[in-house]
């Protein structure tokens, strides 16, 4: 009797286990995480807020998702916590845990398209009313080599010099007169270090950001890290060498770069917002993250244009994001994702009502409104947008004048076009070596890095 009951129990357990495993197997669909579609209505997951964002930001995104649902009752938006990260992105893509709609940097779109890792949304994007007025240079970042458009560009930026006004004051410097040459940057950084004990300058070094910022400094000094056709690596150019020598001297002669300097994008933001860094180079719109993630005191913040040398090639590195759609999305989901990207990220620059509604909602949620970005249409539409939202601007624009006054005169240089992340990755160890080894041989380090970058470019 006992044995029979035991067998029955074992059978039932196994049956349940097998049954649930089979059900789990049947349950996995071809859709990306969180996406489903039935009878004309569709639910899609989208990139919502960054990890660590405050509740107000999360609420704002959810409100926008609800507002979008009112306009499009057949589309339900499920925002997810997500942030692009060079290290984890390929894993998420392979594992299918990406949202249906997400942003990738300008530099990554072409590679994703070539590997068929994003959906073809050419028709949906071209159907947008403002498509023809999009800035052609910006749109180029969203195009594949086949001429099709694979996403909607947004969040265009030029890298700028961010500085801590409070540390400037404490060091006896005038926060309304930020440095305009690299010699001034070095002198101010040393003054901050000597007078306040904090690092005068912070430099990103990890997860390819070391290469990203070194390339920015290279451009500012008139150098390039790739030939124009993107076929030849030119990491060993005088601009990069000059930039590295400056970092070396700031670290080892002035002491204005801290021995602890080991940062990625989020790390340097955190250190800057905490008042541990006097100046650093990053995208002009990083103030948004400094507020929503790192809770910076707005009075501390200052932004100015990146200093350029006299070289005629000197320019500011510009970039941005492309709103792309997961390759695993169905056509209905892809269409919904484009409509969401239009509603959430771009429409406000072309439509006064949308601009005001968005600014109102952002102000109500205590989100930063008015942080300078770069126009994705033209200067006129950008100025229009600024006028529409004028009453709602809550960022200290007066403290960003060094940047806003010169942004349209700035020569914008695009990021290296071929194997961008690979080239940046080859430069990371060079930056690390220069900041960790006083006797680092810069020309030979650059030669080695150049060989590696060339190999990555050649491999395709």
């Amino acid at each position, binding site marked *: 009797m006992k044995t029979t009951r035991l067998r029955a129990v*074992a059978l039932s357990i196994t049956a349940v286990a097998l049954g649930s495993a089979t059900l789990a197997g049947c349950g996995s669909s071809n859709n990306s995480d969180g996406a489903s579609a039935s009878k004309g209505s569709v639910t899609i997951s989208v990139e919502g807020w960054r990890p660590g964002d405050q509740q107000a930001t999360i609420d704002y995104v959810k409100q926008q998702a609800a507002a979008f649902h009112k306009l499009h009752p057949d589309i339900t938006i499920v925002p997810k916590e997500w942030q692009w990260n060079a290290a984890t992105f390929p894993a998420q893509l392979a594992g299918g845990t990406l949202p249906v709609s997400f942003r990738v940097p300008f530099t990554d779109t072409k590679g994703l398209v070539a590997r068929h*890792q994003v959906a073809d949304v050419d028709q949906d994007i071209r159907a947008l009313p403002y498509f023809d007025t999009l800035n052609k240079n910006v749109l180029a970042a969203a195009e594949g080599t086949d001429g099709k458009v694979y996403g909607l560009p947004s969040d265009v930026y030029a890298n700028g010099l961010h500085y801590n006004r409070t540390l400037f004051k404490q060091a006896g410097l005038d926060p309304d007169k930020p440095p305009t040459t690299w010699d001034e940057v070095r002198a101010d950084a040393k003054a901050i270090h000597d007078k306040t004990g904090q690092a005068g300058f912070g430099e990103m070094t990890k997860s390819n950001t070391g290469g990203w910022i070194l390339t920015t400094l290279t451009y500012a000094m008139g150098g390039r890290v790739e030939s124009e056709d993107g076929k030849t690596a030119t990491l060993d150019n005088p601009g990069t060498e000059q930039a590295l020598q400056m970092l070396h001297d700031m670290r080892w002669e002035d002491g204005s770069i801290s021995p602890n300097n080991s940062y990625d994008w989020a790390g340097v933001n955190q250190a800057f917002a905490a008042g541990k860094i006097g100046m650093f180079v990053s995208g002009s719109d990083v103030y948004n993250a400094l507020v929503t993630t790192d809770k910076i005191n707005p009075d501390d913040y200052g932004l100015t244009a990146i200093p350029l040398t006299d070289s005629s090639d000197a320019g500011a590195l510009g970039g941005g994001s492309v709103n792309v759609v997961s390759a695993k999305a169905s056509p209905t989901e892809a269409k919904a994702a484009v409509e969401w990207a239009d509603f959430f990220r771009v429409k406000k620059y072309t439509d006064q009502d949308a601009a005001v509604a968005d600014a109102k909602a952002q102000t109500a949620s205590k989100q930063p409104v008015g942080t300078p970005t770069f126009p994705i249409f033209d200067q006129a539409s950008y100025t229009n947008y600024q006028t529409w939202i004028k009453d709602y601007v809550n960022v200290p624009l007066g403290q960003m004048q060094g940047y806003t006054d010169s942004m349209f005169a700035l020569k914008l240089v695009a990021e290296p076009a071929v194997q961008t992340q*690979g080239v940046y*990755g080859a430069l990371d160890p060079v930056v690390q*070596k220069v900041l960790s080894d006083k006797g680092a041989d810069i020309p030979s380090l650059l030669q080695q890095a150049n060989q590696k970058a060339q190999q990555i470019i050649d491999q395709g």
Partner: protein
Amino acid sequence: MTQIQAPAGQQPGRRRPTYTTPASPGSDPHGPHTGRAARALARVSGWWRGGGPVTVLFLLPMLLVFGLFSWWPIARTVVMAFQQTNLVEPAHWVGFANFHRVLSDPLLPTALRNTVVFAGLAFVIGYPIPLLLAIAMSDLRRARGLYAVLAYLPVVVPPAVAVLLWQFFYDASGDGVFNTVLGWFGIGPVPWLVSAHWVLPSLVMEATWAAAGGTVIIYLAALTSVPKELYDAAEVDGAGIWRKLFHITLPHLRAIMLVTLILQIIGTAQVFLEPYLFTDGGPDNASLTVLLLIYNYAFGSTTGGGDYGDATALSLLLALALALLSWIYFRLTRSWSDS
């Protein structure tokens, strides 16, 4: 106790003769062929009636879990090592191209050297510490449990939290915790994680702190099996602490020590967490290990990202190397461990 166990143990044996007897050659009236068939049938029916299906049913969930999450990934790794795939497009076969590319990667010697240095430092610093701690603790008469708990606590701390904590300790400026302490003696500041020379010893120290507790517990358990009389006898013979240690304690721990050593070698050859979380392989690849290189092939984008073929090829080579190493190790130490 024996009375209860005996019938349960005898039950299958008692049943078996009732169906195996007809299948025996001498009693088979239908010739050899039918005899073999009958024997097979009997074996199956015996297996069935002896509780075989229930055994399989009980085994099935575990087989499924192991198969799905352990053996299937291993099989996929072997297959993928000979393919090129980005997991989105269909994979295609590339023969030994992945192995060739991995073996000619200039970063591989760096990663190998760092891994060997890490394992070597872990052997010098990390291997004796738990042993000494356990021996010292086993000699304590009071509060031995408390010390065991204290030694084991770091194992309980989540690794990512421990790394954050140690990053704080390893602050390279003069204000860092360790540098402040060293400063009292006029030493430093030491550039812990930001110097190519210091980074591996720094990682080994944290790893030792984090893992020693587990090994201490193993040694402590083993030490309880050393007969106390041996120590008493040695004392009567006039043996001091060191003679007792070298002639009684260590010989008794020999078998366990050999196992912990090979486990440590395998563990340190696969070190990933510390270099990944502390330094991401930096500065200038000074803490890039083989496993971190594998991770970078697959998920890092320093190589353009997504080289799953290269990653699995190097994984396979590492697994083979470790298997070979373990085999040699056990052959060399066979006579040693048979005590």
